């Protein structure tokens, strides 16, 4: 198994965000994690990238236990996390933001290759490369955030609500690119979405989180689109 989360619990003081959650991701997949606001989705990704500590449980990536790793080592091992709310460095240029994404890449030629690749996926970033990150539109910022997380040549990409606040046309575009990255660059994708419809359309498998626990596991994401519970809870049916 590529990524395995075993009985993971995360809490913030008295608030339990995740309780004994287990899930796995196979190499090459796109896996969606759905759930309402506050279900614990972001906590899951934050725990994997080690910016919040696990209270108990284990996280195993590529055979190595990363439960106690430092965040920078998780990046080095090949996990990139594109966080909720984009977290662009506003005062740095688009180019500098992208270069920071490749902070763990020591070979300058490899950084240039990655940069060119990102510019072919997101041509708008090339045009805007000298502009401050904070001056980009919301959609452009999202592209920058995704592009930045790809700069480290990750094996696993964690995406926290990439469609948040984007117009439908842009959402389609972002998901198209995510699929391309998954297919062409062989990047495994773990995707959090509130936009269940879109996520299930593109994912191979899906998990649903409810109040910090897994409530549904589906090996066929598209089938979930017909699940009455999902329709009621997440598709506005």
């Amino acid at each position: 198994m590529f990524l395995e989360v075993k009985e993971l619990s995360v809490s913030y003081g008295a608030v339990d965000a995740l309780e004994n959650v287990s899930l796995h991701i196979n190499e090459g997949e796109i896996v969606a994690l759905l759930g309402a606001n506050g279900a614990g989705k972001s906590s899951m990704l934050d725990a994997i990238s080690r910016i919040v500590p696990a209270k108990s449980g284990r996280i195993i990536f590529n055979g190595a236990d990363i439960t106690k790793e430092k965040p920078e080592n998780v990046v080095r091992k090949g996990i990139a996390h594109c966080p909720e709310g984009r977290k662009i460095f506003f005062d740095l240029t688009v180019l500098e933001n992208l270069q920071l994404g490749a902070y763990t890449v020591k070979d300058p030629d490899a950084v240039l290759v990655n940069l060119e690749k990102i510019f072919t996926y997101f041509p708008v970033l090339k045009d805007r490369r000298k502009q401050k990150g904070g001056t980009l539109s919301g959609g452009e910022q999202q592209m920058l955030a995704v592009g930045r997380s790809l700069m480290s040549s990750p094996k696993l990409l964690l995406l926290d609500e990439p469609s948040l606040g984007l117009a439908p046309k842009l959402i389609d575009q972002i998901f198209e690119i995510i699929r391309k990255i998954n297919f062409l660059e062989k990047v495994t994708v773990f995707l959090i979405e509130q936009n269940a419809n879109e996520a299930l359309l593109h994912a191979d498998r899906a998990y649903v989180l409810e109040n910090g626990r897994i409530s549904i596991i589906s090996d066929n994401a598209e089938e979930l689109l017909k699940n009455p519970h999902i329709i009621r809870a997440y598709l506005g049916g």
Partner: protein
Amino acid sequence: MDNFIFFLTSGLCIGAVYALIALGYTLVYGIIKLINFAHGEFYMVGAYAGFGIYLVLPSGTPAIFAIPLIIISSGIAGIIIAVLTEQIAYKPIRKSGRLAALLTAIGVSFLLQNLASFINKANPLQYSSDKVGSIGEICQRSVSIGGGGIKIIQFVYIPVTLALTLILWYIVMKTNFGRAMRAVSQDPDAAALMGINIDSVIRKTFLLGGLMAGIAGALIGFHSVIEPMMGFMPGLKAFIAAVVGGIGSIPGAVLGGLIIGIVENMVLFCNVPSGYKDVAAFVVLILVLLVRPQGILGRNTREKV
């Protein structure tokens, strides 16, 4: 009124030293939003360390070797004390809020002052100028400029500050480490996701600040009294300089330092009793804060709550 040029030159020289110290305040504030009140003590430690090296140097060492050696040693001492302070005092309480950090900084400041008094038994030190050709004597020599005497060692201040500022500017704006510094300054969580080791960036930021404060200590130590409290006033003025220039801004720190240096010399030029000289910095501070609360080159930052 004919000695305007003298006071201007004098102000620029001392302003360059304030700038050197102010850069450390601004760097550290930029990265962890801490007013490092112990920063003036890094300067004091630098001055002592330089003097210590001077004492162990063979007596015949030519000044042309001794002076750079002392400056470098002071810089290294500044680095050591700054990094130790960060590791021992600030790092453990980094998540405890700004007030705790501020109080700790004041505590460290007192601690270092008292440690220096303990070791030095509060006897002020000075480079001896008895022998012609000795460091002390050379540094006390002065040349007449615009109606007053400027010590030749003071002419070293501006080039040293200029060189260090340019190097610093290059590091911050053009290197991977500098980008990481700016990233940590804006959003430490996002910086961690980039694979940046935050602890290491903070440590290196203190290192840079300590280096410059230590060097400033050496420069002033060459011709004035070295004593445990010597860091207080220059530290305070440099802090004011950093705020006046816009805290967090590198050009701001340099500009602020030069302004404070020049203004306090202009006070003397205008025949105000020299006892009021130290008040000048505060007046500048108040005036600037009234007109531009973020400082001259500071940006109107959207503070995160």
